[in-house]
């Protein structure tokens, strides 16, 4: 299952272009202009606790904005929903956003939550990921993991990327030498699967010069420019939700678990508690030690540089293109 990365990229750009066209066609699609449909990029979990809190505690209502949180089906893509105008806001990783803007769909970052990179490579016991040239490494079949591909090229590791829906079972069964994981999600899933985590076997991108921000809330610029006030209110109420979650983590988990139960997600409170703790940690800027909720121009430049070097972007997507 080794994929040629350039082919993959070309295909993705084509798909993006087609969906952009479709989106333009559907621009007249009937949509309640008063409601923002918000689709997080993954199934219900504590990664999105701030938004659930904002909805459950009525912060959106207080701000005078109608927000409807609609989750993806397991096999759907949030990006496609955004481009189809099935939703008006979604969470994206910075690298994903750069790819989409580069593909011709202008986006606006209305709220940046992540201040640090959460991606790690976990390798089979006793093997340092940096010494495993040509190893079979699991990667998400959706559009995450750009940094890992850049790192593999830069470090000349020539990993064989295996795209999969989720790498945990394959890794535990011994079908993979290593797998990409988010420090707040798959990392804990591996621990929960009985994998004895040893820090030597874990490569944390944020500690090796790849500390690029991840989750932020994005809208298409087209929608944003039509509804700037609503977007701001949505962003402010969401930020309030995150701040409340940081102050009341246990109550926030209660709220998260309600969303999890509603969608019948196979997870548990322990995992969600660990996830929230880690997500909140990642929201604190390393330098200012504060929860800043802003996109950092230096990180945008760094992401651009790496992706341009690896031909993932056709041009530089500037910081100003992403913000208001």
């Amino acid at each position, binding site marked *: *299952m080794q994929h040629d990365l350039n082919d993959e990229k070309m295909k993705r750009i084509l798909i993006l272009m087609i969906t952009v066209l479709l989106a333009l066609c559907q621009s007249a699609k009937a949509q309640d202009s008063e409601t923002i449909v918000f689709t997080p990029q993954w199934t219900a979990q504590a990664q999105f606790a701030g938004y659930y809190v904002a909805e459950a505690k009525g912060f959106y209502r207080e701000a005078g904005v109608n927000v409807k949180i609609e989750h993806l*089906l397991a*096999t*759907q893509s949030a990006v496609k929903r955004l481009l189809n105008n099935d939703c008006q806001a979604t969470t994206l990783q910075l690298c994903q956003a750069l790819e989409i803007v580069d593909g011709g769909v202008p986006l606006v970052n209305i709220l940046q939550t992540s201040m640090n990179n959460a991606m790690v490579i976990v390798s089979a016991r006793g093997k340092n990921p940096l010494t495993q040239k040509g190893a*079979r490494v699991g990667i998400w*079949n959706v559009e995450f993991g750009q940094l890992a591909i850049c790192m593999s090229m830069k470090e000349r590791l020539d990993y064989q990327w*295996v*795209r*999969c*829906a*989720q790498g*945990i*079972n*394959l890794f*535990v*069964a*011994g*079908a*993979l030498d290593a797998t990409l994981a988010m420090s707040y999600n798959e990392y*804990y899933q591996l*621990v*929960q*699967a*009985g994998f004895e985590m040893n820090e030597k076997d874990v490569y944390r991108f944020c500690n090796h010069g790849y500390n690029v921000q991840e989750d932020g809330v994005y809208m298409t610029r087209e929608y944003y420019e039509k509804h700037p006030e609503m977007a701001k209110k949505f962003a402010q109420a969401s930020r309030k939700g995150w701040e409340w979650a940081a102050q009341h983590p246990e109550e926030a988990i209660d709220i998260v678990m309600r969303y999890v139960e509603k969608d019948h997600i*196979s*997870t*548990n409170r*322990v*995992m969600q*508690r*660990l996830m929230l703790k880690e997500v909140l940690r990642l929201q604190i800027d390393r330098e200012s030690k504060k929860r800043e909720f802003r996109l950092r121009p230096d990180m945008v430049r760094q992401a651009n540089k790496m992706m341009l070097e690896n031909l993932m972007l056709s041009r530089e997507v500037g910081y100003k293109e992403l913000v208001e």
Partner: protein
Amino acid sequence: MRTIIQYIRKKLSVRVSLWVVLFATVIFVAALGIMFYQSSKAIQQEAISRASQILDKTSLYVEGILNRVEVASNMTKWLAERHPDEPDSMFVYSRSMLLKNPDFYSCSIAFEADHFKEKGRYFSAYTKHDGDSIRTIQGGSENYQYFYMDWYLMPMLLDKPCWTEPYVDLDAATNTSEMVTTYSQVIFDHQRRKIGVINTSLSISWLSHSISSIKPYPNSYSIMVGRGGTYFVHPDSTKITRQTIFTRTMEKPDTALTALGHAMQRGEEGMKIINLDGEDCYVFYKPLGKTGCSMAIVCPESDIFGSFKRVRRAVMAMVLLGLMLMLYFLIRIITRELSPLRRLADEAENIASGHFDVQLPDLHRTDEIGQLSHSFAGMQQSLVQYISELKETTSQKASIESELHIASSIQMGMLPDKFPTKADRDDVQIYASLTPAKDVGGDLFDFYFRDEKLFFCIGDVSGKGVPASLFMAVTRAVFRTVSSHESVPNRIMTRMNEIIVEMNKTHMFVTLFVGVLDLPTGLLHYCNAGHDAPVLVGDGVGELPCDSNIPVGVMPSWQFTLQDAQIFPGTTIFLFTDGLTEAMDAEFAQFQINRVTDVATEALANHQHEPHQIVDLMTDAVHQFVGDAEQSDDLTMMAIQYIKK
């Protein structure tokens, strides 16, 4: 606590009973301990064997079904590889698999992306039961990119057929879900290139249902975990597919549970004791065929050992009650058996307080206590007799003591008690003391003046007490009688010897020193019959030279020799009996003559050698030397100072 200990110390019956019960307890504890240990081992063994049988049976059953799936999958693979270029045939193969095996859940023959150009990017011949009918469709879409799924990737990556981790299959069309596991293997084309995967799914709801219904004990339950530790069977349905066996160890480490999880993941078989929710549980586990799953039967210890523990508690309670009763009755019986002793003790106290005539209880017993009672009665009689004899003896002794006291007064009355001093005379002053060792003594001294001469003597009768005192009285009387008409000391001594020998039937004797001091001239005539030589204290200190004569009363014909010496004015003649030189301290060391001369020398140096002074100094010195030791002999001293100028 101290009161209890004191009570136990006081009561023999309680102490003996406690010892007996303690000993019985030790024996019971040892015997019951061994019995309980053996019983619990047997029960544990039975539980292991019962659980092993269930696990083996379930495992064999699962193996049988899995083998059927594998055989069917192999046949379909063979068909697909014979016609790899005929996509429509794949629908037939997939459908026929389910037709022939109605208990299988689904079958799909899925191919690599764009494998059949005419069929589009996704091609999967997918057949599934749909109620009573079988539905075959072309699976795969943008929303279901099967080639990213575990069941597709695992055989591709592992290069071998494999069973995937169970998962809940959601059928959007019918909105139903089913827990399935799949057997997947790769399809190769004629060039041995990997072109797709055959996936045969098996519902494990029946398996989970039959596993969860296993209940070897009332509160036992079964669990099934997948390769990643995920619960697929658990009595708490909220844990199924949502938690793994390791979840609870993530926040609260539990090494035993982690070890169990790893052992089950490794496909091991065995038994572990784990503490779950505060209760020890026996967990018996075994892998389920090749699925990578493992099942376990969790039996709370209280279930396995429930009846055993109830019996054990009952036995322990009975033993405890028995021991308490034993203690109670022992104390009662021993107290009753020992009650005569108590009465005897009371009567003994009465006797001790002087009531010798109390009536002892008549016990009519022949055992040791009866014997003791008889002995006690005998002792009481002896005691009464002894006490009456003692009373008589005591009164006799008191009478004798009274007589002795009188005798002592008489004896002391015989001795001179007026001592001439400077005030009385200008030629001589005298002082003497006699301290008998008993009431009466055998020492004597005497002096009197006649014809300007001082007649004096000092003596010591052999023996002590009344006989010696009588002999002393006789000696003194004889001295006075003989010296009244004889002035030469050796003649006085010879005559005294003759008289005393004649009446001496008891063979006693007396050492005697007789001196006659001519007062105008200071010339001293003297005769010494075996007595200690006097010490002269004047111009220096020295012993008066004495001939060796035998004591008076030994030989009738002995001729005593006469000696003389000039006594200069100021010189004190210090005479004494051996009670001084042989006075002993507590270590039986004697005072000796050198200490006498030392005291005399010191007295002389201090000009304290007048008779009274020298006798007092000598008395103090000897008392100091003797200390608390008992006086062993009569002590007599006499000092005569010639002071004629």
